[in-house]
């Protein structure tokens, strides 16, 4: 039986091919430094170095003689956790990007090209051209429209630069408007939508704000009390809260990805005719009614009753605007 190929082995190969030229450029580097640079656990570096140190080419004799192999200063490695390459074979330089790797970076750059950091458009196109030249084949045809960001982002950035709190009017899904004071921690996006995550002094907790619901942002003179390094932000944009509403929906299977951000991690999906029955978690019915009303014909609230009624009422009020 032939071995099954795992993508893991492919990733490990890419790592080996990248690590060798890095080590060649560093006469001596500690395992810790290399691990920090590649953002991997130190043991992954040690494993890779052990493998590199016994690898090489078959050579003239086709039997992997000593001079045909990489070698390292073993004492430095085993006793001091230091890497010193003492013999090198076959590899001279970093590998090129694959067509798809280059395409992933180029499309990512396109998406981000409206960030204040990317103000220099000429520099971005130079960078894209370099990636294209550094690719072993024409980058795959993938493109992302630049995401639109407004002046709010530049103001957030400035308040972080100065280390001061940001103040703005914020209107939540319920329609309530409040003046908020926030220590900005991180700016996040999902496709065309942008969010600020920050420490909210009004709620005394981490909150997520949609950038397009922020109005009249002003930079204050008040120093921040919490910086990005002080708060651990979970990766998920929408955190669950104990008083969240759990809602049962029936959804057309094709529309499930649209609800993925709202699904609970343990949400079950069971077939109900040509629909799928599942549960989502929302902070209140005001968010839910907007979400469900934007998916007419593909998502229906089943329970609880008051959520169902809130959606019906939202639709009724909307339809009434067009006359009975």
């Amino acid at each position, binding site marked *: 039986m032939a071995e099954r190929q795992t993508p893991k082995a492919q990733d490990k190969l890419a790592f080996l091919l990248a690590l060798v030229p890095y080590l060649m450029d560093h006469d001596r580097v500690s395992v810790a430094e290399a691990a920090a640079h590649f953002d991997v656990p130190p043991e992954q570096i040690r494993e890779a170095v052990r493998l590199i140190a016994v690898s090489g080419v078959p050579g003239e004799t086709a039997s992997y003689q000593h001079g045909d192999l990489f070698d390292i200063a073993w004492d430095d490695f085993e006793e001091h956790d230091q890497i010193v390459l003492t013999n090198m074979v076959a590899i001279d330089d970093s590998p090129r990007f694959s067509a798809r790797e280059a395409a992933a970076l180029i499309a990512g750059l396109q998406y981000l090209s409206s960030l204040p950091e990317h103000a220099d458009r000429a520099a971005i196109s130079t960078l894209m051209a370099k990636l294209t030249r550094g690719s072993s084949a024409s980058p795959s045809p*993938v493109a992302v429209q630049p995401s639109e960001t407004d002046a709010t982002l530049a103001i957030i950035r400035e308040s972080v630069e100065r280390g001061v709190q940001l103040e703005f009017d914020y209107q939540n899904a319920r329609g309530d408007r409040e003046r908020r004071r926030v220590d900005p921690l991180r700016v996040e996006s999902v496709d065309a939508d942008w969010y600020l995550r920050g420490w909210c002094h009004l709620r005394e907790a981490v909150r997520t704000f949609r950038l397009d619901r922020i109005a009249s942002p002003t930079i204050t003179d008040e120093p921040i009390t919490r910086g990005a390094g002080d708060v651990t932000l979970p990766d998920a944009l929408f955190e669950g809260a104990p008083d969240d509403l759990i809602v049962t929906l029936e959804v057309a299977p094709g529309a499930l990805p649209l609800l993925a951000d709202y699904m609970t991690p343990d949400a079950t999906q069971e077939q109900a005719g040509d629909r799928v029955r599942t549960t989502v978690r929302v902070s209140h019915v005001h968010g839910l009614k907007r979400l469900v009303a934007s998916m007419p014909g593909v998502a229906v609230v089943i329970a609880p009753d008051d959520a169902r*009624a809130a959606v019906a009422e939202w639709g009724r009020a*909307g339809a009434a605007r067009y006359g009975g």
Partner: protein
Amino acid sequence: MPSATPAPRIPVEERLFSLVLALLATDAGLTKAEILSTVQGYRQRYNHSGDNANLERQFERDKDDIRELGVPLETIETPGQAGNNQSLRYRIPKGSYDLPSDVRFTPEETALLGLASVVWREGSISAESRRALVKLRSLGVTGGEPVLVYLPRVRVRDAAFEPLTAAIDKRQIVRFRYLKPGEAAPVERVVQPLALFSHEGRWHLYALEPDTGWNKTFLLRRIVSDIALTGKTFDPPPGDQAAIGLAELEEVWAQRTAIVEVEPGSDAEARLTKRRGASRQADGSIQLHTADYHILADELAGFGPEVLVRSPEHLRNAVRSRLERIVADHG
């Protein structure tokens, strides 16, 4: 010579790494027999007197894996023996393997590329951007700490994305069923897939329909079947097809407009006035742009009573009937 006792199992990555090293080190190339009998990871399993079919299949898969990483693994024919498979030679030419010496990145560029790579969180494009980042780090440059921490994401959740990416790579004509809004049943499409692009946060396929000779744009979420490969290949037209497709849809977006009224102080007012391309009219109404009126109708229905569509008439009707559907479904 391999020993008679069973050799220790060689990890896959060691075999792949040894294959790359061996093929980089040869100018003339190595034949398959030379590779299987001498390269670490193969030689331990090579049968000098018998059948190596399993090992040969392994070698075929390894070649694919290596090429997928962007390593230019070449096949060359021995002069005078064209067509003889056993005399094919394999090598990786240094010149096309090495990153060109003028492709080096400044710390600022490295920081930008680092950010560009975290955009992808799902599917193979996420794995590819991670690998690109590893190769970038190979150059030893660090990006430095950003002033403001960003966590950007582009979702790739459409089931059709992966198979279409593969079909585009292989230049294969594909077949799928596509459900246009307002049509009762999906229609089968046979197209040459040219590019994938994201517009307004939605993934689209740009393709050429051989039957009509027209270029068409398909919204991935409206593809309601698997993507079937037809086995027929095509030659893609020259030019950056992703950019062409995106520009065509952007043109459509610029031409299609709607006029809506929003309740003062509402969420609809806050968000719609900040929408890309939105403009306030003299009478307080808002002009919006859209690439697709059906999608705009869904979005506007979500705002319930906060929005009233003035024009065009068909959009007005579409939003109204959506809201009535919501009421009927939740009655």
